[in-house]
């Protein structure tokens, strides 16, 4: 009887270990598959960027003949020409102009969005729900609809061909996404410290400056980073507002001769320059 039980027990144990090793093998196979897929997709993701770096050291003819990364005849000609640009202005001028749009816009966004998010997250006031609903609505509203009247408004204010159309809306917390993000952050921060400060006689403004802002720093840094990137990459805004021929700030399309053969049109680098 006991012998029989023992035999069946050991058979069961064998089954378990067999099943476990089968499981392990299956797991190893899925791991291999995962790594393969991840590596393949990752290569497709990254290769165009890597290739771009390599291509910047290639000659024009090699760019369209060599799909590899390493240039056969490395040259920094591209960088020299790129710095000189095909305009009377150097790359530095364009870059400073871009920074002159980006930095004030970024600072304005950070300040205004913090104040507004503080208002939404820590105060009760009439029409709060309605105002918060408008924030969400702005988030979903396609810019296409308001762009034309905004252009007309800036024209009537005499702001065209200045940076004001790019700065002012952001300085008035126009980027609903950032306000929303900061509100969500603030909701997660406990109010204990603020209440202690209030008891000690701080007013709401002092609470904002000395308690909320230091606590909010990580979120504020990401707001600044996002706004920096998005404004750097903004094409349509400058294209519409600072593009006229007789403007002080001038947009140029410096057309390159390094263009694909048989392709329609030229490759244009839109850039701004200050006359």
């Amino acid at each position, binding site marked *: 009887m006991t012998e029989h039980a023992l035999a069946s027990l050991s058979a069961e144990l064998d089954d378990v270990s067999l099943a476990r090793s089968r499981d392990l093998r299956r797991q190893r196979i899925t791991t291999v598959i995962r790594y393969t897929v*991840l590596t393949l997709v990752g290569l497709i993701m990254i290769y165009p960027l890597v290739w771009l770096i390599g*291509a910047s050291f290639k000659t024009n003819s090699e760019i369209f003949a060599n799909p590899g990364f390493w240039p056969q005849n490395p040259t920094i000609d591209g960088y020299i020409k790129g710095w000189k640009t095909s305009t009377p202005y150097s790359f530095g001028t364009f870059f400073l102009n871009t920074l002159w749009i980006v930095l004030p816009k970024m600072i304005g966004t950070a300040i205004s969005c913090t104040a507004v998010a503080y208002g939404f997250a820590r105060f009760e006031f009439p029409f709060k729900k309605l105002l918060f609903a408008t924030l969400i609505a702005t988030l979903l509203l396609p810019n*296409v609809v308001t762009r*034309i009247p905004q252009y007309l408004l800036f024209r009537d204010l005499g702001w065209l061909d200045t940076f004001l159309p790019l700065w002012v809306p952001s300085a*008035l917390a126009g980027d609903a996404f950032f306000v929303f993000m900061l509100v969500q952050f603030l909701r997660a921060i406990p109010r204990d410290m603020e209440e202690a400060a209030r008891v000690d006689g701080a007013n709401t403004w002092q609470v904002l400056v000395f308690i909320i802002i230091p606590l909010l720093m990580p979120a504020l840094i990401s707001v600044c980073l996002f706004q920096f990137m998005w404004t750097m990459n903004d094409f349509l805004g400058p294209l519409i507002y600072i593009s006229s021929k007789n403007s002080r700030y001038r947009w140029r399309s410096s057309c390159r001769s390094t263009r694909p053969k048989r392709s329609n049109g030229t490759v244009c680098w839109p850039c701004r320059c200050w006359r």
Partner: protein
Amino acid sequence: MSGDSRYLGLLYLSPYILGLLVFTTVPFVISLYLSFTDYNLMSAPIFTGLDNYIRLFTADRTFRKSLWVTLLYVFTTVPLKLAFALFVAVILNSKLKFINVFRTAFYVPSILGGSIAIAVLWRYMFADVGLVNMGLGMIGLEPVNWFGDPVNALFTITLLRLWQFGSAMVIFLAALQSIDKSLYEAAAIDGAGKWKSFVHITLPLITPVIFFNLIMQMVQAFQEFNGPYIITQGGPLKATYLLPIYIYDEAFKRFDMGYASAIAWVLFVIIMALTLIAFWSSRHWVYYAGDKRS
């Protein structure tokens, strides 16, 4: 906070309220008015009733083409992008070594976002003798005429946005990581395989995030401008002439502000209608774990 005026919060909101009125609400109303006018910036707007809309829907073949291309673009790009982002997020949601390296690599193209440099890179890559055709040649395939063929040209724009699936992926990943692991263990004990537990546990639990991504990606896709404007200039044969480019041309090249506003409003109504349909249908397919109703 007691002792403060109940209007103190409004003081902090004042920049937002001013901006909302001046840069959003008033332009919104004016844009609707302009869409019923003939306005070329030289003289005051002339009210023309429904003329713009009648012209749009009966006489304007460019509009019909552009509308069709826009819908085609949105309905291919959004589902493909969501599916791809979810697929990669599921693979990335595991305890593999170097997982953070992969996560970063997949997010880099999205950081570069709508950058002009990337659009220019795309032009080089898909040129007749560009990187993609060289790659196809290396594995023995015929080169593809990417920008000459109408269908392919639109697809290159779709591919550009697919390549930048990172933001949707990050949101999916966050949702996947918040799913309670014990649910999978329970399902495994009940004999459910990987695929079954994905369909019956993962998918239902992340429907709120799928919904959010769907809305955001859709609104974004309908407003695509940089890609086609730089890469294909709307060509060939207007195959990539999306509505935002048409609106830009009408407004800022031909200075036909009234007509451009009318097109913008048609686009707006389409986006709103689709958003509302999504919201309405969400009752039937979006599951909120916090809610009592199931």
